[in-house]
């Protein structure tokens, strides 16, 4: 059951980020800062995964190509905590809950984007608990949710 929930949230995370790339200039600024295409894979050991391709100045899509950066959660339970908004990416990093293949410097932009997407997708009560900073929302979360559902 946890694996199914994680898969659904991974889809929402990707779709949310894809929508927000066009609707929130902070995410566009972060991803465009790579100055080139980039593929990020989020994976749970013995669980679901998603590969997200960023195409320079165009946005996000799903892919099956080899990733430049791969974040692999060591257990389904920890991934569940993170994707259910019970643990921040920062805390997961501090607790060695995932491994990261690739350039750590380049992955920081993605981490900041995940924080921003969580601000929209999770209730503020939740984000206040897991994030040590408050990010302004420029759109209603419901609108982002609806766009995320209908984006492909």
């Amino acid at each position, binding site marked *: 059951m946890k694996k199914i929930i994680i898969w659904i949230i991974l889809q929402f995370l990707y779709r949310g980020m894809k929508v927000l790339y066009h609707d929130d200039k902070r995410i566009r600024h972060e991803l465009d*800062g790579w100055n080139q295409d980039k593929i990020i894979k989020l994976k749970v050991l013995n669980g679901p995964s998603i590969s997200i391709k960023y195409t320079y100045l165009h946005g996000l899509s799903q892919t099956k190509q080899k990733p430049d950066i791969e974040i692999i959660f060591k257990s389904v339970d920890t991934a569940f905590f993170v994707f259910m908004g019970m643990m921040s990416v*920062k805390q997961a*990093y*501090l*607790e*060695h809950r*995932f*491994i*990261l*293949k*690739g*350039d*750590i*410097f*380049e992955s*920081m*932009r993605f*981490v900041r984007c995940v924080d921003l997407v969580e601000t929209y997708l999770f209730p503020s009560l939740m984000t206040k608990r897991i*994030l*040590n*900073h408050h990010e302004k929302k420029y759109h209603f979360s419901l609108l982002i949710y609806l766009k995320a559902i209908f984006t492909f």
Partner: protein
Amino acid sequence: MYFEFMNKTKLCAGENALTQLQYECDQYHIKHPLILTDSTLYQLKYVAKITKHLSIPYQLYTDIPVDSSIHVVKDIYHFYQQHQCDGIIALGGGSVLDTAKGVFLMLSQECDSFDEILGFEVMKKGKNIPFFAIPTTSGTGSEATSVAVIHHPQKNVKLEIISQYIQSDVAFLDPCLTIHLPLRVTSATAVDALVHAIEAYTCSGKNIMSDIYASTAISLISQNILKVIEKPKDKEIRSNLALASYIAGGAFSNSMVGIVHAIGHALGAVCHIPHGEAMSMLLIPCMKFNLDTNASLYGEILLYLDKEKYLSTKPEDLADVTISYLSNLLKILHSQTKLPISLNEVLSLKENMDEIAEKALNDGALLVNEKYVYKKDIIDILGGKYGY
């Protein structure tokens, strides 16, 4: 609460530590080691200080530059295989030790490309390659850490590898290797170690084990940093500083560092400021920036810096007194050793501020700074909002 802590390095510390070198080589079945160092240390006959304790043949590589790169790592990797060596002895400062770690990883992981080992805890335990570290400065603590930072010239970034398998098997801290260090280098490296300990004690990754290491390192450095300026040839003082550097390395290797290092790495990459000097310039402004979040922990640090002062200070003033204590310490080091402590001394700072801030923002160290940091905050710090 959950944490992990790793420190597997055997420590040979104090006077005549190097006399144990051959014994340790025997213990690890080393019969033909590769000794890695830089040309300056070779010319200063530091290699002879260690080879006189070896009774086995060895291969020597002395061309590691100050700002080592992945190309140097690959070159040494081939050199090691070509000469059929069976262990690595790294003699030098941070650049030599980090280069050695890169070589060690490529050999133990049996990989041809550096890209395969980049990242955070990516590797599984590899082939057994004995790796000894002999630091010649007392600052980086690289001999105790799970981190290697190596320059990528094409991308102009420092690539970071974090792995529990990267720590040296044995570290030798012999005061005969640091006793002739110039005073400015001595103070800069000691401040680097002090910043490792302070950031380890105050960043988000702290845990009870790293606290024990960090607080011990802070005490050792505060007790010896000014003494070494007065008595630079005192072997006990030098030993204490080398030990403090090792312990601080063990602390931050497990808890990580924060904003001082994030900006310091960027300042080094863009303006070529030596790391220890960057730490000396950034410590106070960054502590002032962090003060509202870290006040309580900064207050605790005074206990390890100066117990009497801690006991005579009102609890609400502890953090400010800590910052003022450290600020005075830096001023003394500046006056006595010419250690640069002001960002105003970085001539190319203003025109490069945006690039430094951007690089610092993408440094992994910023993720574990307890207070969240925006690019504007970094520009404020560099621009003098928090003094200096």
